[in-house]
């Protein structure tokens, strides 16, 4: 920790040297977090300085602090991975006309984060290269910012018709191929417009956030500290434990709560079990996208005992409800340990068998090698995380860079590949799967005795910040908490791993074949919708008819009203 203090001092000095009086306040809340308040006009210089120190951009957090400081605050979260330090650049924005300088030209990965901050809090990034709407629905009225403090959580703006996303213009001569918003191989809605020349993709446009549920607003206005973990674990149907752990850790860090060692070990074990079933699930879906359903059937069969195990440990196969601030609600019963070992032994034996079978499968190789290549350089630029980053040779892993739970005592092996293609991402995930099994075994062998929950007696102090990162199977999840007064966070910010990873898609499918698009997107393990119109051909009369958006909508609603009866 002394080392971290030293690094923090060096970073502080370097930034102070670059922007001088522009650095207004430097403070350290939790020991691994350096908070630098900078003058708005010096934000870009400070960012440049951090990038020179090889800092990696995580996310921006826009906070409506008008009741506290009479202005808006935008926090830029960076991570110095090798030095195990988080750096927060904080800058104020005018309460009447909030603007900040855009840093997207310096950090391409900040693109979405800045647009989201504008949509949700209303702080406009000046000089942003693509200032279109990102987060809010197309019919959401202009000038309403849901994450402002004076905005009621249950407000519903009137629905508006005839709205559509603002499309990006395709390059000269290219045709547009819409994929989504609902697309068979992708489980969730996401709308891609591929610009194609023949079979070759020459660009793309993305519109997403169809599943935006306003979870952060709910956490800040309705729920209390101890109720949020149950909402956090419903952010994702696969990484539930990851989000609840990340949230609890952020609050624990902000409040200075020390979690018992046994609880930290059990958190680690549960996180690794989650990785085991998630990677098996991904392997199955990747196979399914490629039309190789044997892999899907077999990996999902292997995965099922892990789900049953989770049910036995936690009381539910997916929404575990185990995490709470200060530790865990349920201990790991001694009787379950031999069962866990038996299940992971079986999963290991079968995973090795599947791996050995598919590495020699030339069809699979032909569909994944040199497909969807992401270069290490671009992966760094757009701040890609998790297996896609490691498969491109970027050696980052939140478990090693910012150790949490019991990863300081049971560290993971860093699994990297250099090629950056879909095949490399597959290899990284298989290797991680086997390593997770090793960690589960080691964790169980070294599991200390004792309590799993420390009682939180004191009230959680106000205005403290806590940043917690957790390595989800898809990459690093970031949770930021600023504590508030009425037993709930003042601001809770979540960044899921797909958020930065999706931003790498345009580069990955550039000059790729259309047929490779689904697996390239699938290889990111993304968490994805709508025909604006359909052309129908009457098979008997061979006449054509084009339905408009409105007609289709009316037809669908009518069908729903009749309970699906045609």
């Amino acid at each position, binding site marked *: 920790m002394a080392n971290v203090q030293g690094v923090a001092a060096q970073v502080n000095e370097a930034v102070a040297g670059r922007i001088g009086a522009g650095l207004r306040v430097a403070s350290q809340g939790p020991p691994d977090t350096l908070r630098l308040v900078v003058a708005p006009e010096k934000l870009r210089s400070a960012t440049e300085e951090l990038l020179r120190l090889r800092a990696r951009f995580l996310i921006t957090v826009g906070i409506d602090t008008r009741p506290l400081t009479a202005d808006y605050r935008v926090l830029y979260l960076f991570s110095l991975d090798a030095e195990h330090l988080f750096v927060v650049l904080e800058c104020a924005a005018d309460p009447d006309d909030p603007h900040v300088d855009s840093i997207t030209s310096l950090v391409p990965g900040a693109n979405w984060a800045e647009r989201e901050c504008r949509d949700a809090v209303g702080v406009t990034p000046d000089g942003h290269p693509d200032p279109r709407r990102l987060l809010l629905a197309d019919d959401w009225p202009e000038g309403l910012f849901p994450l402002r403090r004076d905005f009621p959580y249950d407000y519903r703006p009137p629905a508006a018709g005839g709205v559509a996303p603002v499309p990006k213009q395709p390059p000269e001569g290219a045709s547009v191929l819409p994929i989504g918003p609902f697309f068979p191989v992708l489980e969730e809605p996401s709308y891609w417009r591929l610009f194609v020349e023949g079979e070759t993709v020459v660009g793309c446009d993305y519109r997403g956030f169809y599943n935006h549920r306003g979870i952060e607003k709910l956490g800040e206005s309705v729920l209390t500290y101890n109720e949020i973990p149950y909402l956090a674990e419903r952010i994702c149907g696969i990484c539930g434990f990851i989000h609840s752990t990340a949230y609890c850790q952020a609050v624990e860090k902000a409040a200075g709560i020390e979690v018992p060692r046994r609880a930290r070990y059990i958190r680690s074990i549960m996180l690794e079990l989650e990785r085991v079933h998630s990677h098996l699930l991904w392997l199955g879906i990747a196979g399914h996208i490629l039309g190789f359903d044997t892999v899907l059937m077999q990996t999902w069969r292997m995965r099922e005992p892990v789900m049953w195990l989770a049910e*036995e440990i936690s009381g539910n196969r997916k929404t575990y409800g185990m995490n709470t601030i200060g530790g865990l609600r349920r201990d790991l019963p001694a009787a379950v340990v031999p069962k866990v070992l038996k299940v992971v032994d079986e999963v290991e034996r079968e995973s090795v068998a599947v791996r050995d079978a598919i*590495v*020699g499968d030339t069809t699979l190789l032909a569909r994944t090698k040199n497909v969807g290549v992401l270069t290490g350089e671009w992966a760094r630029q757009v701040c890609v995380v998790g297996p896609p980053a490691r498969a491109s040779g970027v050696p980052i892993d939140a478990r090693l860079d910012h150790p949490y739970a019991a990863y300081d005592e049971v560290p993971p092996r860093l699994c990297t590949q250099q090629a950056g293609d879909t095949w490399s991402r597959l290899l990284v995930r298989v290797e991680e799967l086997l390593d997770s099994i090793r960690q589960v075994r080691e964790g169980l062998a070294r599991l200390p005795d004792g309590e799993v929950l420390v009682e939180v007696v004191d009230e959680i102090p106000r205005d403290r910040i806590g940043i917690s990162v957790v390595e989800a199977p898809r990459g690093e999840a970031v949770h930021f908490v600023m504590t508030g007064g009425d037993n709930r966070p003042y601001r809770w910010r979540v960044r899921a791993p797909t958020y930065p990873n999706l931003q790498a898609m345009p580069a990955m499918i550039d000059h790729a074949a259309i047929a490779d698009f689904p697996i390239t997107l699938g290889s990111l393990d993304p968490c994805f919708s709508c025909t604006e119109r359909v052309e129908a051909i009457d098979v008997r009369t061979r006449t054509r008819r084009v339905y408009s958006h409105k007609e289709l909508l009316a037809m669908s609603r009518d069908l729903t009203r009749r309970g699906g009866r045609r």
Partner: protein
Amino acid sequence: MLTAKLREALICFRAGRVTLPYPFAPHDPAPGFRGKITLDPDRCFGCGGCANVCPAGVIQVRDAGQLLRVLEFQWRRCTYCGRCEEVCPEQAITMSQQFETATDRGDDMVMRLEVFMGPCQRCGRCYTPPTPLDRMDRTGFRTSDGGRS
């Protein structure tokens, strides 16, 4: 290529049939599974702790006059987190093993618990009498089988 295909075939053959005969044969959840909440009306003394911690806001507490506290469980919103069970000082709420809760009637998803309270001598509002015997002394008390004392 051929060996890869043979290996894959072998994995499939070894696996055999894995689907379960559910729902034609019962499939019991693991012990400790958190299913539908069950209430023990004799144990509840109306403290409302469960309503205080419920993240989904399933439990609504209101007082019907001076003697009756009504706890309404709109458990179609229940997320089965088990916080109510955890905080209940009298184990009046327990998570059952029941998971087959699908219904086409909304009323099936509402549970109503009426708890007999005592009026406060000063403010007149509902409060819990010092001992269970005290509340049996009050006029209007009903036992859980509907009898009156």
